[in-house]
Each structure stands twice: as C-alpha cells, then as structure tokens.
C-alpha cells in the first residue's frame, strides 16, 4: 500500500508543521483577522486591529504587572488532596494531574510578591487553563494567606480574576471558600489596607460572588464576561435569547457594578495611581 518508504518520512514533520502554522499566526476571535503572534505578544495579547483582549496566563499576567516583571512566588506548591474522592466521567485526581501538567502550576492561582510602582504589593493571578480557573480549598487558602500577610505588612493586595466559579469537585468545601475569603477581606478592610479587584474574561459564579466584587475598587478589562449565573443557565431558565452585550464589562459598568473598564495597556498605571490615592508612598 505504501507509496513511499515509511522510514524516509520524518517522524515529527506533521507535528512540526502544525506547530509552525499555529505557532506563528493566530486568528482574532473578535475581528477574525489573522495576526502575527509576535505582534500580539508585543501588544500584551490585545488584538492590534480591534482591541480584543485575549486571555492571559497567570505567570504572564504577573510579569505584565510587577515592576520589571519581577516577583517571588509564595505558597507555590499547595495542591489539592481531593477531599471528596470526587469522580465524574473522569476522576478529580486525574483532572488535577492533567491541569498541573498543562500549566506547570499546582492549582488555579499564583501569588506574586513584588513591587508595583515601587510599592511592595502582593498580586494574585488566576489561571483559566487550570480547571477553568475554578476555586477550591487551595485557591481559598492561598488568598487568605495573602490577605493575612498584607494585613501584617500593611501592603496592598490585587487579585486578577479569571474563573468559572467554585470548583464542583470539592463540593461544599469550595462553597465555604467564598465565606472564608470574604471574611478575610472584611479584616483587610478593617485594617484599611487597599484591595483592588481586576476582573477579566470570564469571571463568574462564586468568584464574582465573593472577592471579585469586594475590591475597594473593582475594575475590568474590556469585553469580559462577568456575572453570577452563566449565560447558558439563564437562557435555559428564561427560555429566551439574552440581549447583546449582556454580562459584559460595559453592561456591568452601565449598571453600576464596576468602577472602571481599563484597557490592558492602562492597567499598570491605573493600579499604581489608585494605590497612590489609597496609601502614602
């Protein structure tokens, strides 16, 4: 059957081709234009043609925000021990392993300790590729530890959210993280230490219904999906199509739920200026 000798075909050729085309170009999900990945990266992963904000990984996000992109990671190795022994079509343990392998992270948030505009600041960034950025006990614990450290140091906390909400595979434990983190933020508030929440696409469910909406200032990137119930669930419940732009950043701004929509390029200066207002240098 063979038209050519198999051994002459380089084994990696197909994969390499794939990587080459996929690697150099990407198609903008909004304006459908083909963009050079290099251009996209140089533009903070924002489409140079239509300003569509592509998702950003947690590490990339911290590098984008901290002075010189430099930070120490705290609590890097906290990993879930699957308290419910949860299994659906796949076991939670297998899902965790896959996500850890794909992202190089142990769970869906990383804590960076560094400087922002010269000011010691903790920034936490969520990772959507880790089980949809879902929040379980590890995310809850890492945020609470960050809050407690910020209270002791009197240094600001910034959390960049991207999450589908509480992590189902940890059941009621993940639900209680909402209360645990919110209680911590109550203490941070009592201590008058700044907390800024940055919501990015998408931020829904228990993350929106806890820390993401509790910033002294809540800001979002343009066009981000933000809400409690997901649009599909709402559509199924009310059996009608949702209005255009529903639950997008602009919609939330209009309804008084956000302080501002901030373009990714403006994010760092916005945060620095806000912190300058909240705290003496």
């Amino acid at each position, binding site marked *: 059957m063979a038209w050519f000798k198999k051994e002459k075909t380089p084994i990696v050729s197909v994969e390499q081709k794939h990587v080459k085309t996929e690697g150099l170009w990407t198609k903008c999900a909004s304006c459908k234009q083909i963009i050079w990945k290099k251009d996209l990266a140089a533009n903070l992963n924002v489409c140079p043609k239509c300003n569509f904000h592509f998702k950003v990984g947690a590490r990339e996000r911290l590098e984008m925000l901290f002075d010189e992109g430099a930070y120490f990671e705290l609590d890097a190795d*906290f990993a879930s021990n699957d308290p419910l022994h949860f299994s659906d079509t796949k076991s939670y343990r297998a899902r965790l392993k896959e996500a850890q392998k794909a992202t190089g992270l142990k769970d869906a948030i990383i804590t960076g300790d560094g400087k922002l505009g010269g000011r010691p600041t903790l920034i936490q960034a969520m990772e959507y590729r880790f089980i949809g950025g879902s929040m379980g006990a590890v995310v809850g614990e890492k945020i609470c530890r960050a809050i407690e450290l910020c209270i002791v140091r009197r240094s600001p906390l910034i959390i960049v959210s991207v999450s589908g909400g509480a992590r189902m595979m940890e059941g009621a434990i993940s*639900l209680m993280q909402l209360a645990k983190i919110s209680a911590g933020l109550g*203490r941070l508030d009592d201590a008058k230490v700044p907390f800024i929440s940055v919501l990015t696409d998408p931020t829904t469910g228990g993350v929106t*219904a806890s820390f993401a909406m509790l910033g002294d200032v809540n800001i979002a990137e343009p066009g981000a999906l933000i809400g409690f*119930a997901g649009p599909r669930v709402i559509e199924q*419940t009310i059996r009608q199509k949702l209005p255009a732009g529903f639950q997008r950043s602009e919609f939330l701004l209009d309804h008084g739920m956000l302080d501002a929509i901030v373009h990714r390029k403006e994010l760092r200066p916005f945060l620095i200026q806000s912190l300058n207002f909240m705290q003496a240098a």
Partner: protein
Amino acid sequence: MADPKDIYEQRESVEDLERQLTEIKKLSPGDESEREIALLQARIDRVKREVYSKLTPWQKVQLARHPKRPYTLDYIQDIFTDFIELHGDRRFADDHAVVCGMANFHGQPVMVLGQQKGRDTKQKIFRNFGQPKPEGYRKALRVMKIAEKFGRPIFCFVDVQGAYPGIDAEERGQAEAIAHNLREMSRLRVPIVVTITGEGGSGGALAIAVGDVVNMLEYSVYSVISPEGCASIMWRDAAHAETAASALRLTADDLKELGLIDTIIPEPEGGAHNNPKQMSESLDKQLQKDLEMLKRVPVDQLTDRRYEKFRRMGQFFEDASAHSAQSS
C-alpha cells in the same frame, strides 16, 4: 436510575405492611397468628429502618425538597412569638422570597430571617419559588444591621434551591449582593445562629449563612451546586443527578464529617413534614442551647471566633514541595 418517587413508594409498602398487621391482629389469637404478627412487625421495623435511616443522598435531596416540608414562616410561627415582619431593601424592592422580622425568643428580642418558598402555585409565584433576587440578600443584611445596632441576636433559616438565574437579578448585581453579605455577616457584632432547614443551595444559601453556629436538619442538604446542575455540567446530562448527589457529598452527615457544620438536628421519623410540631420542638431546643452558649462569648471574641471558624474550613491540601520534584 432510581426514581425520586421511590422513597414514597417504599413508604407505601410500610403502610401496606401495617395494614396487613392490623388485619391479622383482628383475627382470633393463636400461636400461628402470634408468630406471624412478630414476623410482620420485625419486617415493618426493618423496612422502616432501611427507608429512613439508610436514605441515599438523592433520597435526602427529595426529602429536603418535599412539598410539605416546613418552611421558614412555619418555624417562625412555632418557635417565636410577636413576629413583626420588616420589608424592603431600601434600594429597589421588597423581595418576597426572603422574610425578615423582629420577634421574641423565650423572652428575648431577636431578629429572624430566612428564605420562604410557596405552597400552592399562586404562593410559589409570589415567593419566586423561594429564590431571592439581589434585593432579598440586601434586605436580609439591612435587618441584620438593625439587630447589630441594638445588640440583638440573629437567627437565619436557610432553604433555597439556589440564586436566581435571571436577567434582572444579574442586572442588579446578585454576585455583589451575595459577596457583600458574606463580608458583612462575618463581622456583625451579635450572635448569629444559622440552620439549614431544607435546601442549602450554593451562594443563595451562604449569603445568609455566615454564622457563629451552623446547624443542619437531618435530611437537609448543603451544596455548591444542585445535583442536576452538576450532572448537566460534568456528565452533560441532568439525568445523572442521582450520581452527582452522591459525588457532591451534600448531606448533613457529609458536611459534619468535613467540619463545615456544627450540629445535625434529628428529624421526626420520615422527615420534618411527618411531624412539624416535633421538628419545631427539637429545633427550638437546639436554638436555645446555641444562643445560651453564644451569649457567654464576649463580643470581641465573637467575631474572632466566627472568623477562625470559617478560616479553618478546607484545610484539604498538601504542600507538594515537601515530597515531589520541582516542576520547573
């Protein structure tokens, strides 16, 4: 796939057996019938035990949602006196899915509140099936702040399928309303006693459940998502709800074992709806005990204690750096 009706059918069979027993007892006495009576009685006891003490999580979900289950206003009427309902969130509307008010609890002024479901179709619509919109959570917090101002304890009764998935609830910021409640409840300077009476449905439940003590009725459930919701996401099929109910670990026993609640309040045989008065009496006793205990805690310690209580929840992780290779 077990039908939700199973539990009621099993109870039917208990009633059948009991009817048979009465029939046999009516017959003339004799060794034969006495042995039969003893056998039948043993079988009835066994079936009852099987039905009510070995309920599956899914069967407990059915009991928690039983249409005759006592609701918040039933408990308020049974346990409290001089209830005066307080309405409205002072922002937008009065949410009928949440009832709040001042009341008297064994001689002390207290604030009571909870979600309220409806019994008939008209009431169900009036109460929005017990699903609050943002104004419901905001009303609840408003009255809790009144309680705090005047140093009165708060009793919360939780029975909600989940937050309301609707356009209006999103427009008015239900996520913000829930988040705000969670933060503020955690630092209210009065005792808060929470009881999950039926369905503890995700954020809609937690929004009034950050208490010093959290109780669950024996057949109530408390979960991050409904079994149907979980099934349709994880199995892409809501028909797997029964499996999801087990996987989610949402029963009172599960929550207790995971260290997320304090006390399980036993229900009358067959569930609270089988003997609402008895249910109210047991609940009343537990609430008195909880309040007596909390009244002895100085206010400053109270909020620290509440913070620590939630802070401890979910110590279910390992520090992988201790025993695995660095990945990068």
